[in-house]
């Protein structure tokens, strides 16, 4: 009853070693089952047929390899791909890819299936038995131990601790230069993480056209992907992408009635036009999705959701921090410009962030 040997979960105890002697008996190994001949073993016609099938498969492989060269030399891809006016080259490229790949596929499959079919039907299928041996025997171990003892003894490393200890010291230090060399993989100055190209008076321009934005262009519900104007002069070699990766901004006009603005940020928006960093505070993806009716911003990478009505507070997802807001104002010509740089580092968190935030606050206070 308490024994679970029948597998019924009857209780929580008592399934231990209390089996009577005759139950200890187990079935004896009957040995390898007798070999059952295949049709190809007993019927020479079947064997002949299998031989022909294998040869046919090898022939298919030959045809496949030829097909590759038919595709390689026979199909001409002349002209532009994905051209609006002429779709022939694109179709030719597709056909060529199919023929090249299909030819190689047939060439390989013909050999593979043929050889396996050969092995299964015509090569002997008698199972053989091989004995295993211990990975290591006691004799070997003792012998090895003795050899190691001799080696240690002859080297004298145990008897001469001065040599041993200096060697350990040398061996520990010797690789360190190569670790040290890795330091120059990159600069170790973290201050660039605090700053972007935004600064007082830098115009907000459209990405990618680079045209400046008038406050009146920003209608309720519209959204702009924005760059700092001074980025447009930057070449790729001068760190265009590095700067762009930090400076990208989303701009939209919100209904002033639904927006809450914390004290100190009242003049960061222009009549309900708000600018926020587009770099997610989670791991840095660009926040590209704007849901107008819920006034939420959604990161397409990990679905962090930010509420524009509450200064981009996180309402869902893995981000922990609101998106930094870019303070903006209008210049003499009516264009939107930055009031200053971001007041905190943009993008994903790093350990020194809290120090950076505190120091940046002090700087701004002064």
């Amino acid at each position, binding site marked *: 009853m308490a024994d*679970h040997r*029948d597998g019924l979960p009857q209780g929580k105890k008592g*399934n*231990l070693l209390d089996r009577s002697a005759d139950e200890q*008996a*187990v*079935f004896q190994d009957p*040995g390898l089952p007798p070999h059952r001949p295949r049709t190809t073993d007993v019927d020479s016609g079947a064997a002949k047929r299998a031989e022909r099938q294998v040869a046919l498969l090898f022939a298919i492989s030959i045809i496949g390899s030829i097909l590759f060269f038919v595709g*390689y030399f026979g199909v001409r891809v002349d002209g532009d791909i*994905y051209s609006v006016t002429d779709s022939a080259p694109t179709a030719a*490229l597709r056909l060529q890819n199919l023929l*090249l*790949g*299909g030819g*190689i*596929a047939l060439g*390989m499959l013909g050999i*593979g*299936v*043929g*050889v*396996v079919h*050969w*092995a299964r039907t015509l090569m*002997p299928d008698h*199972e*053989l038995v*091989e004995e*295993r041996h211990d990975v290591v025997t006691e004799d070997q171990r003792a012998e090895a131990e003795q050899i190691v003892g001799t080696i240690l003894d002859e080297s004298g490393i145990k008897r001469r601790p001065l040599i041993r200890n200096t060697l350990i010291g040398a061996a520990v230090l010797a690789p360190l230069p190569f670790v040290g060399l890795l330091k120059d993989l*990159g600069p170790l100055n973290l201050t*660039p993480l605090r700053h972007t190209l935004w600064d007082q008076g830098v115009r907000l321009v459209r990405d990618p056209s680079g045209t400046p934005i008038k406050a009146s262009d920003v209608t309720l519900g519209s959204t702009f992907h924005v*760059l700092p104007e001074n980025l447009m002069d930057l070449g790729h070699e001068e*760190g265009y*992408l590095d700067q*762009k*990766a930090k400076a990208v901004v989303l701009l939209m006009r919100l209904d002033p009635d639904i927006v809450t603005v914390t004290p100190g940020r009242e003049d960061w928006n222009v009549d309900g036009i708000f600018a926020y960093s587009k770099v997610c505070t989670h*791991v840095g*993806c*660009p926040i*590209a*999705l704007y849901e107008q009716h819920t006034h939420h911003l959604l990161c*397409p*990478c*990990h*679905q962090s959701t930010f509420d524009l009505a509450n200064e981009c507070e*996180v309402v*869902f*997802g*893995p*981000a*922990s*921090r609101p998106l930094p807001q870019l303070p903006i104002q209008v210049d003499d010509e009516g264009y939107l410009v930055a009031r200053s740089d971001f007041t905190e580092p943009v993008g*994903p*968190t*790093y*350990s*020194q*962030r*809290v*120090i950076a935030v505190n120091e940046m606050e002090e700087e701004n206070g002064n």
Partner: protein
Amino acid sequence: MSASTTTQGNTAEYQADTNVGKIANFVDTRVGLSPIIKEFGRKIFPDHWSFMFGEVALYCFIILLLSGTFLAFWFDPTMVTTEYTGSYVPMQGVEMSAAYASSLNISFDIRGGLFLRQLHHWAALLFSVAIMVHMARIFFTGAFRRPRELNWVVGCLLFVMALVAGFSGYSLPDDVLSGNGLRIVDGLARSVPLVGAYISMLIFGGEFPGHGIIGRLYIVHVFIVPMIILALVVVHLFMVVVHKHTQFPGPGRTENNVVGFPVGPVYAAKAGGFFFIVFGVLAAIAATVQINAIWNYGPYDPSPVQAGSQPDWYMLWTDGALRIMPGNWPFTWEWDLFGLVTLPMAILLPIVALTVFIIGMFTWPWIERWVTKDNRVHNILDRPRNAPARTGLGVAAMVYYGVLMIAATGDLIATHFHLAVNDVIYLLRFLFFFGPIIAFIITRRVCLALQRKDREIVLHGRETGRVQQLPHGEFIEVHEPLDEYRRYKLVAFEDNQVLPAQQDAKGKVTGSEKLRGRLSRLFFEDRVAPVTPAELDAAHHEHAHDVHELESAGSSSSGH
């Protein structure tokens, strides 16, 4: 001056007759070919369909090396800006990195380049599939037990290296999608306490994205990681030779032998042929199914990103771990410690979740050995049903992994099934914690049920589907007893039992020993023992009555 080149005093040296024989003999006498052929020529390998997954992984790796070498001839791993002048119209005149431009050239202007790219990518995907299925096979059959624990560790390292290889390769074309992957790497690197921002600076050679990352990933992808994988594969296979392959229980198979086919010719033909089959299947996929259409995404730009951007499948679980972590619930998961250090726990905890999985994987052979106190050599595999707790745990781990993997597609699930993405994530958060537990319980019960089914079959025979009527009107289904070979397969397994906490030398039961005892109870409390000959006899007596009745009924009916 020696008179003769033959060794003095010996019988004349062997002289080959044929040309092939002469070449073989030359090599043999210089490097010793004969011992190698003697060792491997007729070495026995057991045959089972589940043993081929490791082969698939190996063959994928070879195909990756081949196709990757071809790609490297044309790929330009630099971030120098150039203007695209190739034949793909939508990108003509666009400024882009040389890496992306050369990726486009491989796709459109090198004949067969698109095929090679697609072959390489598909092979990488199948490589990681094969590794994981192979690992599952090893786990569920207990093949990692002594003496193969270290080979399990090598396998786990190969799994990790496959992820590194895949990710580093995925990032090379420098398109928008792969650049966003690197952006996430930057975010992850920055999250490391104290040194994170510096690590990011060192990886990217300054601020993200910098100008160096593609070249650095290139050397990782084409040199460092393949070399490590190659070395590990050599060690892996060397250990397979040392240990000889495991085999499933069955008649004639013992802990001390290997039953199967010899390398030459059968196994070599099957395994060799299988390489060509894997190659052929991958080539067929690469010829017909498009993958990673980098030309649609455009060169890397930090500003745009598409909705529904997912990494390659083997990285999904890492992305999913990031997605299901709440950033602000029930409180904020970004901690400022003493105004000195910021800890982004919403990134660190998912990394912990991934690390736990990896560490559990590496250490499982030792954990199981500790719980079962079983330090014996195991060359006979467990059928998964005969190790219900291990199988349950394996499925639990798969559910854990699977939940993280599915979480990375939460946005796609939401859009395809018209659900709120929030609800999908809430459900997955629940499943992350409770899914593995539910999976463990269900799987263990299914295993026990399957074991009971085996008992039924052994005791009462196979159901034949023939229904007959007894003289007194009862219908019975005729069961056919198993032959001894099939029966042995069903009864030859180890009857593991609970090993309660033991006293140590000082007569104390330590806390860890109590824990071990409890785990042992969890493992083996509910179990199904193999049928014994005595039980079978008893069952036969029971049947004899029915059979007798049936036979007499048969003879009387024939008299009508």
